[in-house]
């Protein structure tokens, strides 16, 4: 069994945001895991006059534990966004995590592919972020 540091500490919060502003307004996806198990999810686009989707539900401690394990194993908490690409017109990503006595709030641009990762000033750190945060919308 793997066990990363701090994963059994009770305090855990995670928020991820990705979005941009364009001709369909402020299009974004955001979700957060709160320490009591509440998951909130919001997704907005004005494409075809779509309106914001907001959902919330409660997760079991087992799911939160798995999330903590994933974050812990990724070692994202050891990284720093100071050399990551700044958010730009193409978009913005935010990752905020509280785990144990550490609190990160990282911000960067959208990452199109690993090429962007490799050409950045911090390919090692940005790669961890890139693989941790892979968003697809293909599941029906």
């Amino acid at each position, binding site marked *: 069994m793997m066990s990363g540091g701090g994963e059994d500490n009770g305090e855990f919060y995670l928020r991820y945001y990705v979005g941009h502003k364009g001709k369909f307004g402020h299009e974004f996806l955001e979700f957060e895991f709160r320490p009591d198990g509440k*998951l909130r999810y919001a997704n907005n686009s004005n494409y075809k006059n779509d309106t914001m989707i907001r959902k919330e539900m409660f997760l079991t401690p087992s799911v939160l534990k798995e999330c903590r394990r*994933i974050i812990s194993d990724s070692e994202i908490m050891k990284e720093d966004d100071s050399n990551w690409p700044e958010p730009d017109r193409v978009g913005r990503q935010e990752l905020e995590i509280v785990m144990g006595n550490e609190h990160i709030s990282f911000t960067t641009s959208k990452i199109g592919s690993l090429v962007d990762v490799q050409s950045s000033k911090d390919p090692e750190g940005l790669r961890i972020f890139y693989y941790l945060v*892979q*968003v697809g919308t293909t599941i029906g």
Partner: protein
Amino acid sequence: MANPEVDIVDFEPEDDDLMEEEGAIDEAPHPKIRSAITGGSSFSAPKKTKGRGFREETEAERNNRFASKDFDSLDSDGGPGPQRSIEGWIILVAGVHEEAQEDDLQNAFGEFGEVRNLHLNLDRRTGFVKVNQLPLFSTLQTSFCNDTPGNEEGYALIEYGKFEEAQAAISGMDGVELLTQIVTVDWAFSNGPFKRRNMRKRFVALLSSFTFSDAHYKERIR
């Protein structure tokens, strides 16, 4: 810095709705709520903070995108126990061997009923089970992973149509060896917030987190 208000608040599910009450925000009379979040002043214990998010100004445009009201919720009585999802009952299988295939899970978990949905997230590069990937929720797949070698377990989400099937799968598979690894199996969704026996020890820390995220929501409602 400890918030003296926190100590007299009992942790109950209703407390989770602090953000609905105007009083919650008054406890944090910071000129910018963002700074209350990121400055660490609302936490009971000092935290190591890192990232641009702590240095940046709040964007007015961000305010409304994550308001605390008007979220669609699953019908819930707020009591303890598993929660049905939109189409069925979803269980989490943790500790899945990285070389597991969907068939392996289908075979093992099909014993307990018809598997309506099975998500086993594969690493794009290796084809193995993704070990660092956050659980997903119905229409959205949010993949969290990394490619650090040495990780050897991932997770799967399995949906049954019937409560009894899901319950049988949990009872039958939790703690059982699957492909040489012990898997843990449990419900994915719950009717309400955690209720821990040792909440007394933890609730100060937890509530300080609520303060932090409540403030966050307040900011966005405006």
